[in-house]
């Protein structure tokens, strides 16, 4: 009998209590092909390592995780097709992150699917999509976010701005919901934290279309900015910082996604002291022997990538704990066990807030330097904690307006 049939039979016979499949299947739905497939590969490899380590240590209450890979191809309709495929294969725990639009589409599909198929519910672990609305107006019982949302990331960045005593801030971003989220958060938070700080520019540019950022950089220079805050990702982030370095602009660029793979390789020495990004930690901080073994194992096994996605490991550890607490791999008990769960992570205590399913954790502002133990993108540069860049979990958290609808 297949795993799916088992769950069904058990669900019918026992009222859905207590039976887990032989394997606990994790459905990976991120983009693996096409021009941006490399990012999906890097996050997938981290999951592979985490799964193997958990299984080697005895699995989840004796049963192994099985990582099932589906290529979502970066398109919402394709993600939904692969989702349906995975559901038919018996997957009930999904992993997706790269693209808030994809995550929003899947959350929407999950809400409907779970309402229409009681007893076969599924849940989603979001390990990277940071659009605020996913834990605000569009929050869902089936969605758990293991990465800071836009407001929290900017909160850490604006804290850093205030601590460093910068006077003039330039905000630049991509002209769509995400870019505007970041810009609005930066402006309002700065006004609240330090009314003396002047916003000397607030610019939006087209998404992924600008080839030459020099005109924007010259505007930044002319405005006399001391520091730039940007939510840009992908080429928009890399080209912006690269352009700034070429134009001799030396002010720091505080980014949300500066840590993405390939950025340091693309920028080279230009990144040193100029590129900052906010994350849940980095391998060049003081880490435990256990963490060091993990990072070394990763880099040995996947030499093409760096250990960047610590949150993936954390998410699976917490999922394992939740399944063991719930005594079942079914989505509803697991979701209830995840709600409010606290956990001691390598980089500090974390809490999955029950109100909106947003992980609360310490955040760290990092920058690029030379001569570090762990380097990035096969260059001689690496990420290190910026001075005064640590932001505590309680300080990084923001209130939520989510009105969570829970199944009875």
């Amino acid at each position: 009998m297949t795993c799916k049939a088992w769950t069904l039979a058990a669900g019918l016979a026992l009222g859905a209590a207590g039976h887990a499949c032989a394997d606990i299947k994790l459905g990976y739905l991120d983009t693996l092909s096409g021009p941006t497939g490399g990012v999906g590969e890097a996050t997938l490899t981290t999951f592979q390592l985490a799964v193997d380590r958990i299984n080697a240590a005895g699995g989840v209450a004796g049963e192994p995780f099985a990582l099932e890979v589906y290529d979502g191809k970066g398109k919402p309709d394709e993600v939904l097709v692969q989702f349906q495929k995975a559901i038919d294969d018996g997957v009930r725990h999904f992993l997706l992150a790269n693209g808030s639009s994809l995550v929003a589409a899947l959350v929407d599909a999950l809400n409907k699917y779970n309402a229409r198929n009681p007893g076969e519910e599924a849940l989603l672990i979001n390990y990277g999509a940071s659009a605020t609305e996913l834990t605000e107006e569009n929050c869902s019982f089936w969605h758990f976010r293991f990465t800071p949302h836009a407001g929290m990331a900017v909160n850490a960045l604006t804290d850093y701005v205030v601590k460093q005593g910068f006077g003039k801030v330039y905000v630049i971003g991509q002209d769509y919901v995400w870019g505007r989220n970041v810009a609005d958060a930066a402006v309002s938070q700065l006004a609240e934290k330090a009314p003396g700080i002047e916003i000397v520019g607030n610019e939006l540019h087209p998404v992924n279309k600008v080839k030459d950022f020099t005109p924007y950089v010259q505007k930044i220079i002319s405005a006399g900015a001391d520091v730039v805050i940007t939510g840009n990702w992908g080429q928009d982030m890399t080209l912006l910082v690269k352009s700034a370095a070429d134009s001799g602009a030396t002010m720091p660029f505080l980014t949300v996604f500066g840590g993405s793979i390939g950025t340091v390789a693309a920028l080279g020495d230009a990144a040193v002291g100029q590129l900052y990004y906010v994350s849940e930690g980095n391998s060049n901080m003081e880490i435990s022997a256990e963490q060091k073994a993990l990072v070394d194992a990763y880099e040995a096994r996947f030499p093409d990538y760096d250990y960047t996605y610590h949150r993936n490991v954390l998410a699976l550890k917490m999922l394992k704990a939740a399944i063991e607490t719930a005594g079942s791999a079914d989505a509803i008990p697991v979701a209830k066990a995840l709600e409010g769960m606290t956990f001691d992570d390598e980089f500090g205590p974390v809490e999955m807030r029950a109100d909106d399913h947003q992980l609360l954790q310490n955040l760290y502002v990092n920058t690029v330097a030379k001569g570090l133990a762990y380097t990035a993108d096969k260059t001689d540069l690496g990420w290190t904690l910026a001075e005064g860049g640590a932001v505590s979990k309680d300080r990084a958290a923001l209130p939520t307006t989510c009105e969570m609808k829970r199944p009875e």
Partner: protein
Amino acid sequence: MDVIVFALLNGTIYGLLLFMMSSGLTLIFSMMGVLNFAHASFYMLGAYLAYTVAEASTFWAALFLAPVLVGLLGMAVERWGLRKVHANGHVAELLFTFGLVYVIDELVKIVWGRTAVNYRVPEELNFPLMTLFGADFPAYRAFILVVAAAMLGALWFILNRTRAGTVIRAALVEPDMVGCLGHNVPAIFMSVFGIGCALAGLAGVIGGNTFITDPAMAAQMGPIVFVVVVLGGLGSLAGAFMAAMLIGYLQTAAISIDWSMADIFAAAGVTEATEFGRISVASLSTAIPFLLLVLVLIARPSGLMGARES
């Protein structure tokens, strides 16, 4: 003042880069009628090959070698691929190049990996040339100017002052007649395709370290090169040059303007409170080329300086 100087300077450089990227396509598209969607992939190959050659020797070797390699590859593609498809019409050729995009992009990922490579500006050119209103002007940008100008000059010379150029120009307008005169039209097509690809490769050598060399660089170039070619007019290198510069200046100027729709249409009662009013001129900058393309083609189907419609 500084706004105008910057807009002119950046517009010129961006226009020249656009021209470098699209000049090869002008030859291919206007002469052979091939909507070569793989043009950007050859551009990417140029960047990656330059990276490899520069790692092994120097940037200067790459500047010469990479375009030649890309050109040879282009000739091979024409000889053993495109030529077989030619009889099936232009849509078949177009689809062939679609397929080629997938093949080249995947091969690049297999050979060079899935993330960005560290292809840098050579040390000799990595210094600020001058400082303008507080912003450095990197020497490499001046180098781009030189290379683009040299390329434009060389193309002009070959097309207008050599016998081969005369044949190519004739074939642009009257391919059948040129064949009747005893010229080997397939061979001309093959070399034109090769030259076109080599020009894309050269643009890749320059663009790869100005921007980023990663597997997404071809997809990101997008259809803008088609806009330049068609806007300028099929069969007209001068037209492509003008279109590239026009787009370069317009886009850069739009970025420099801090107006929103609410400012422009204030008289009509549009305010910042509406969605339309919030749209800034700068955010429209990338839509401008396409708007221009649509308007020009409706009014003048042969493009700005084109000799013929199709």
